[in-house]
């Protein structure tokens, strides 16, 4: 019934690279990172140059094609160049800020779930408080008080987005902490830090991959909302979320202005997910053979 085909043992990296989907994901990530890093070399136009020939006589943007690979936006700027430069902002937000939020959330959730007692209770109630707190208001205040910048928006996102992760991680940690192998570690005299980092965190990886990769899209779009409120990067600096937000009412008149950056966000999130999924399968010994 089943063919016997032997495959020799291979290291995790080799095994990762053997997966087509993971390779596809890696390729996209490299493409985006490369595009962001080498934007000045690749971009056909400066990202904020409002080109005279970029608008029609009636002030309409140009559709993709011709000089403009992805068309132009409402100010006659080359969309392709803006997408390339926008990748810088969006990578920082989607990967760094989202990553920081994930780390904070994981730490809080894991500590609260593992240590319990009054410390855990205080952490969780603090999480509840943050969850109930209107994040946009915080953003507006920060916007009005500080000079808006990418780092502020990254900070706000990290401050706001860890909450959900914390709650989910908390639930999972509490049940993990009840598992017998944790008790076994305690009898070995393992310190709490060791149990946390060596034995609990690795088990949270699958959940974190789901949350982390879905979080990319969410934070990239959130960045646009925050920028709109004045917290984030200010025009004319492009970001993928911004490009969508600036142009979303034009989705019928100039669909490329919405769908191209949308597709970019989607691809980035998807690529990270593919790599993440593959990594999990490769690293998780219990998954071997199964599937």
């Amino acid at each position, binding site marked *: 019934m*089943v*063919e016997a085909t032997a*495959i020799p043992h291979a290291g995790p990296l080799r095994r990762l690279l053997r997966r087509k989907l993971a390779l596809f994901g890696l390729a996209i990530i490299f493409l985006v990172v490369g595009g962001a890093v080498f934007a000045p070399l690749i971009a056909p136009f400066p990202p904020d140059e409002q080109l005279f020939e970029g608008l029609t006589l009636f002030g309409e943007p140009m559709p993709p094609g011709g000089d403009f690979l992805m068309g132009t936006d409402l100010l006659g700027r080359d969309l392709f160049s803006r997408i390339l430069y926008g990748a810088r902002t969006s990578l920082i937000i989607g990967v760094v800020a989202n990553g920081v939020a994930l780390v904070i959330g994981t730490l809080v959730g894991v500590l609260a779930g593992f240590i319990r007692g009054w410390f855990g209770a205080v952490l969780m109630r603090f999480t509840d408080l943050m969850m109930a707190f209107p994040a946009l208001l915080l953003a507006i205040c920060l916007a009005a008080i500080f000079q808006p910048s990418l780092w502020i928006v990254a900070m706000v996102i990290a401050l706001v987005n860890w909450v959900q992760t914390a709650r989910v991680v908390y639930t999972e940690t509490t049940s993990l902490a009840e598992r017998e192998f944790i008790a076994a570690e*305690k009898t*070995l005299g393992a310190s709490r830090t060791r149990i946390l980092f060596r034995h609990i965190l690795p088990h949270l990886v699958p959940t974190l991959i789901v949350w982390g990769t879905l979080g990319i899209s969410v934070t990239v779009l959130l960045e646009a909302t925050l920028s709109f409120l004045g917290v984030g990067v200010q025009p004319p600096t492009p970001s993928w979320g911004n490009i969508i937000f600036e142009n979303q009412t034009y989705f019928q008149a100039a669909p490329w202005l919405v769908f191209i950056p949308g597709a970019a966000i989607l691809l980035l999130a998807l690529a990270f997910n593919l790599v993440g999924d593959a990594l999990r399968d490769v690293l998780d*010994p*219990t998954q071997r*053979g199964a599937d």
Partner: protein
Amino acid sequence: MIVGAKPIAAPLSGAATPLLCVRDLTVSVRDRGTVRPLVSDLSFDLHAGETLAIAGESGSGKSITSLALMGLLPNNVAVTSGHADLEGIDLPALPEAQMRPLRGAKVAMIFQEPMTSLNPVHTIGAQLSEAILAHETISRRDARAKAIEALARVRIPEPERRLKQYPHELSGGMRQRVMIAMALAMRPALLIADEPTTALDVTVQREVLDLLRDLQQETGTAIILITHDMGVVAECADRVVVMKSGRMVESGKVLDVFARPAKSYTRDLLAAVPRLGAGAKRGAPQPPAAQVPVARLVNAKVHFDLGANFLGRPTHRVHAVEGVSFDIRPGEIFGLVGESGCGKSTIAKALAGLVRHDGHIEVSGQQLSSLTAQGRKQICRDIQMVFQDPMAALDPRMTVGEAVAEPLLIHGVGTAAERHARAAELFDRVGLTPHQMSRYPHEFSGGQRQRICVARALALKPKLIICDESVSALDVSVQARVLALLEELREEMGVSYLFISHDMAVVENIVDRLAVMYLGQIVEMGTRDQVFGDPRHPYTQRLLDAVPIPDPARKGRPHIRPAGAQPSPIRPLGDPPAQLALRDIGAGHLVAALS
């Protein structure tokens, strides 16, 4: 049809056609691209009303065989050749859609893990009547009536009330009985019981086995009983199939096989079976040394609070351990026996510092409750624990080599290379090969995992090892090896043990002294000879009486069935149970006064 070259379990009565006819069954697993057989060329017959035991070491393919018959193999495992005909229908070849109506109706199965085999979110009643409704077109109310009847048949008290309860509200034994009730409610032609009693203590095991037998007599169901306990085989089965590494080693009538095992493996297996009374032959335990005890409990208590009133105060309290005192002397094996839920594990946990306790517990002269974090860590070097379920006690994401070296790392012993060398040495010590160190726990069999846990416990050269049901899940041969290992280590390193088990035979074979617990308190304590040779407390007597005897010739002796509902350690707050006073009846043999 019959392949003569292979040993085939001979039919009990040659005339009748067998109910189940298994021929050359091969089940293989697809693993990392290779296909590896788990069960090879298995053949046997089974007739109506008969009980066939499948015995053999852990990982020999017993469960896989039964899953193959049910058509419930895991995704990556499949029947690759051979067939298994039930009343002429080849079960493994049936497509899922046709197999489904047969499940439950024709073949039913009681799974190995009773604790996890019931759905936690549905009531017992729902799960029972669902099984009935799946195969009969009757009204819900009739199904309910049948469910009550089925529960009554497995002698669960107050069946109507139980219907509304959830699995977690029942004890392990009850859950097992529910599983049996469920399987039997459909009156299958064939019932497969996969280690139905492994997780149960002797008294409950006794009840379950009796039940199966009674029911078989009533309904004429054929039973395949999978077990590693030769006592159970001897008591319950008509015929036996012995398996090893996925192959059948020997088969035949139980009486014959036990009396005249043909194969050396079977002989070894039978020889390894611990027998009650065999321990006495081992000679008297060493006289109690006058040294400081490694561990000492004085009036130790552990309570768990339950429920909450509107101020958040608990309303009930579990008196899990209620005033227990004993010491463990250096080099001694101290046994702790008692039925499920009597507080054995809780004592172990209190000693290991995993639960809070009241009273006085001291380990190598230091009182536990007054320790600092550093001191607690230090104590861990002296006291180690081997858990009941080795799979659960190992981090599934860590290689076993790392796991064994971990205690050394935690306590900062040696360099990485030294630790590795020490781990390799320990692997050797417990009968594993060092090149297995890079594997993960799920890649080992149950017995091997247990040995890994022992190796981990030994890494720090502790003074005391707590073994909480450490050998219960192992087949006899592996069990014997592990026990021998413990014994050896004691001799070599002078380690003491706290040995917790429900298997009286094992206990008798290994311990020097023991305590019998009931509802959180010790009812009898003394040396092995005192307690086994002269049990005074009625509870001890009942416990000993329930032990199955691995001798088919002594089948069917009458048992005292415990009557009425069991008393519970859960009491309202402010209503502690009465403390039993222990009376010395000579030479340190302590017995509680009868209440």
